[in-house]
């Protein structure tokens, strides 16, 4: 009998012990833990590449390019929602953004910011572990992380105004804690600090055209800094940053004699580009289903050709703006051509698996127009007009409507804003451009906003929209409801009470 008990116990021990071998192992089976990572320079490199990869889209949240397109264009007169547009998208167009709006979710940006933070926090430790890892390599990695973190915070400030400023990495669950918002100004100070830190760390070139356009270089930092200074109305600093890029001689306007569309947008990585998100056949963007006419969520606004690019009815050989039909958009079915087109005749579309038009963060034309805007504010409208002229000459722009008056600062300000609309159509810049110009000098030119919304918003909602816009807080998105619920320190933007 004793044996029976003994055998039973033995059996249990045997069964239990044999099945339990894995339980004692605490490391995950399907990944690498931090203690085993961050040991070699290759791993640092992989982590930096991961920052860029996360910007292309990870599949769990709205990809950055799609988000920036909607943040920068949906509230403007550039686009109209298509028949597949979601209610969230229609609400943005109608200036009815609720905290439940799917595009008010900032997690895409914070995920990438966390990758940057991780590199900034852990890469320096590798220097001691890997003798082949040089200080120069570390500097480069740190510079790239600082630059991209700065840029993403700049997008967050322009979209949400006050946001939580997270500068250390969330490495384990213990790091998750509620965070309050920081003021837009303090975040922008941090952005400038990040970019200033990154500038000396980054190389001027990686010795390869594709890498120079897809990885942050020192010129990328100059471009972002110029944009930040312009937003903060520091014009001398903005012009100085622009000059760094202009004087480098590494960039130029493409497509003066060749096809601007083909070089700049279809192929990508052109000599004009400063920083692009490089989609390719392995990683395509989400624009194809979004813009294709049979599944369209977004199309170009119908007035663009007539009222923005202009139709020449005077000359025997009409002057046609290169940036209009067949470049920014295809006029006959209002397809957004920059991301959908395959030729500049407006006849061939990209196939679904070809949908890898790059997302251009900054290009040389942007530098020229930012400088023009800055020096115009510094009372040099004549010099500003020359820069605008160089952009217009490249594009073979048609003179119609408002006349460029190089003696009138206010007129130039408006003209530059219009030129930016033509030049950067659908590149996610229009909303920020209009807000930046409207808010200057305490909303002296509030009408830029109402003029724009007067075109884009349905007629029966105009008055409501105009009065909403008068509240400065309405220019910024609400904090997404899920974030409010999970982070109790967050306070909703007062406009969305």
């Amino acid at each position, binding site marked *: 009998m004793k044996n029976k008990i003994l055998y039973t116990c033995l059996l249990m021990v045997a069964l239990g012990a044999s099945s339990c071998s894995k339980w004692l192992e605490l490391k995950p089976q399907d990944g690498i833990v931090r203690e085993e990572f961050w040991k070699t320079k290759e791993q640092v490199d992989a982590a930096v590449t991961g920052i860029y990869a996360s910007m292309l889209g990870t599949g769990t949240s709205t990809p950055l390019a799609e988000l920036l397109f909607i943040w920068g264009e949906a509230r403007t007169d550039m686009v109209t929602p298509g028949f597949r547009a979601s209610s969230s998208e229609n609400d943005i167009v109608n200036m009815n953004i609720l905290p439940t709006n799917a595009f008010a979710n900032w997690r895409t940006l914070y995920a990438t910011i966390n990758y940057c933070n991780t590199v900034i926090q852990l890469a320096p430790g590798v220097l001691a572990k890997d003798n082949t890892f040089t200080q120069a390599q570390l500097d480069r990695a740190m510079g790239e992380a600082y630059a991209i973190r700065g840029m993403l915070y700049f997008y967050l400030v322009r979209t949400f105004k006050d946001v939580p400023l997270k500068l250390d990495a969330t490495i384990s669950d213990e790091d998750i804690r509620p965070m309050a918002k920081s003021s837009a100004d303090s975040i922008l100070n941090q952005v400038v600090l990040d970019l200033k830190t990154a500038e000396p760390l980054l190389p001027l070139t990686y010795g390869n055209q594709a890498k120079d356009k897809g990885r942050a270089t020192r010129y990328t930092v100059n471009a972002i800094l110029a944009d930040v200074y312009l937003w903060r109305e520091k014009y001398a600093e903005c012009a100085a940053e622009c000059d760094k890029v202009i004087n480098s001689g590494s960039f130029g306007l493409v497509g003066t004699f060749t096809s601007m569309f083909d070089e700049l947008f279809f192929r990508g990585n052109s000599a004009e580009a400063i920083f692009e998100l490089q989609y390719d056949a392995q990683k395509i963007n989400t624009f194809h289903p979004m813009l294709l006419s049979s599944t369209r969520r977004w199309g170009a606004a119908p007035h663009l050709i007539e009222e923005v690019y202009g139709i020449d009815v005077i000359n025997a050989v009409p002057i046609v703006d290169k940036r209009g039909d067949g470049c920014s958009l295809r006029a006959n079915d209002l397809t957004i051509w920059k991301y959908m087109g395959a030729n500049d005749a407006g006849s061939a579309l990209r196939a679904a698996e070809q949908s890898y038009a790059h997302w251009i963060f900054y290009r040389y034309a942007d530098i020229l127009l930012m400088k023009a805007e800055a020096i115009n504010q510094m009372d040099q409208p004549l010099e500003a007009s020359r820069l605008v002229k160089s952009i217009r000459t490249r594009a073979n722009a048609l003179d119609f409507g408002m006349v460029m008056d190089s003696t009138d600062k206010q007129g130039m300000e408006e003209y530059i804003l219009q030129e930016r609309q033509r030049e950067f159509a659908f590149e996610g810049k229009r909303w920020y451009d209009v807000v930046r110009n409207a808010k200057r000098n305490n909303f002296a030119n509030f009408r830029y906003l109402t003029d724009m919304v007067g075109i884009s918003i349905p007629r029966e909602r105009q*008055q409501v929209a105009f009065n909403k816009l008068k509240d400065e807080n309405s220019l910024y998105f609400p904090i997404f409801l899920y974030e409010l619920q999970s982070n109790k320190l967050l306070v909703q933007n007062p406009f969305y009470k």
Partner: protein
Amino acid sequence: MKNNLSYILAFGLLSFVFASQSCQKMDIKIETTGDVNIVGYLEKYPDSFSLFKQILDRTETSAFLNAYGAYTCFAPTNTGVKTWLTKKGAGSVDAADLETLKDLVRFHLLLDTITTSSFKDGKLPVPTMFSQYLVTGVSNKGGQSSYLINRQALVTQSNIKVGNGIIHQIDNVLEPSTISLVKQLEAKPEYSIFVQAIKETGFYDRLNTVDPDTSKRWLTLIAESNQALADSGITSYAALKAKYSKTSSPANANDSLHMYIAYHILDGVKFLGDIITSPAHQTLQPQEVVSTQLLNSEVIVNEDEFNGVVEKGVTLIRNTSDNAATNGVWHDAGAHFSVKYRKPTAVYWDVSSFPEIMKLAANYKKASFTWTRQSEANQPIKDHYWGWGTLASTNIFTYSYSTTSSVTRYAVNFDCNQLPLGLPSRPIWWEMMTPPIIKGKYKIWICYSRSKQSSSSNQLCQVTVNGELMPRTINFTDLRPKGSDAELEAIGWKQYTEWREYRTDSNYAGKLVGTYEFMTTQKQQIRIIPITGTQNNNFIDMIHIIPVDENQVLPRFSTDGSKKYF
């Protein structure tokens, strides 16, 4: 045996321990959700809503607002209720008049869930349970924008989702209007002339009654202030009467003063937000409409273009319009306007110059262009539309342009509109909206370019105008018959193109489909319905709508669009 027993005992004990551990009482939720309902929410925040909750209790509405349903509740805070009570002279909720309270509660409730996304310039999509509409807007005070409800209360917290609907917290009590349209105007001395005209013309009762039948109750009145009348030189009722009343009895329906007032009353409740969504509105004056549009965010009445001449319209003043009354809404006109009598004028409509093609500089008067409708819901061209054909590839509308093809070489501007038609699989009708046509009696000519897809093709169609069937058919495969102008006109045909030899020009045919009397001056609808045959090659060049008493044959049109009178 004893050992055996103890083994069983030990085993039993062990299993008991396991069993008892797993037998912890489960926490079963009997509600499907923990969300509170509207009243539950109000109870949760007595600091804000105790008085409104008291009102609900007193009017016995708490029970149904705490039950299943889909409501929108505008909940006034305690300060708002207190202000209202003081205004009404009641010390507490219990002291207030019960019927007033009941109406008040009904006015704060909607039988639907309406979030702020549905708030626009004008009324909400559903009326309150008091059966008056609420008007929404946004007000901006000190740089802060808030939703404004009925111009009475600001939304201080919005879109609170509760189990049976949505709550919007407001800072004041909403008060339904208790007086009629005409009474509201009467109370304002600045409308005295207009009100007197309403009285004299016999519209007073119509504008004062609240019809229990809600389909007949609502009216929209466009009032003219004394100032607006004075700007047109009318400073007294006598002057107004002298100007319009020609029969000495303004109550007579044939009297122009009667017509003047009737022309200022629209059927239905139309806030400015509703007015701009439709291009024309029927007035109480039979067969007369006011046209409306939004120009630079101003609502303009009767600004129309007739034969290239723009007639200036009248602005409705936004901040003094949208006044809700028990039986409708009234607006404030910025200037004096009245019924305009226009002489019927011919419209030679070139159907292939529509805004969508004119925007395509590379195509308009240069090259053909085809629109494909991706789905039945898709409408690429505003004024040209067709019934969806089951064969999806035939849902294509072509702007056809060529200076050489026999189909368009003599067409006006060398262009036509082309649409496949016919059962069983091609589009089942083709509809277009004409430019504004002045009311009157007209002959309608369809001017097409004849074409056959194959030698056996046939495409017989009937034509309706504003839904009314025309007596004569057209066939897109018929050549124009031979004969002199007079002979052709006698059988209802004409050569609408510049005069050429028959053998080169016989494709271009104008066929009379019938005579129609347009009852109102506005854009009219023409629909072509295939009845026999089916083909792709249906080309329309122009539609002539010519008053019956005018020359039907001339002018003809040359390829550059100019008129030829020979």
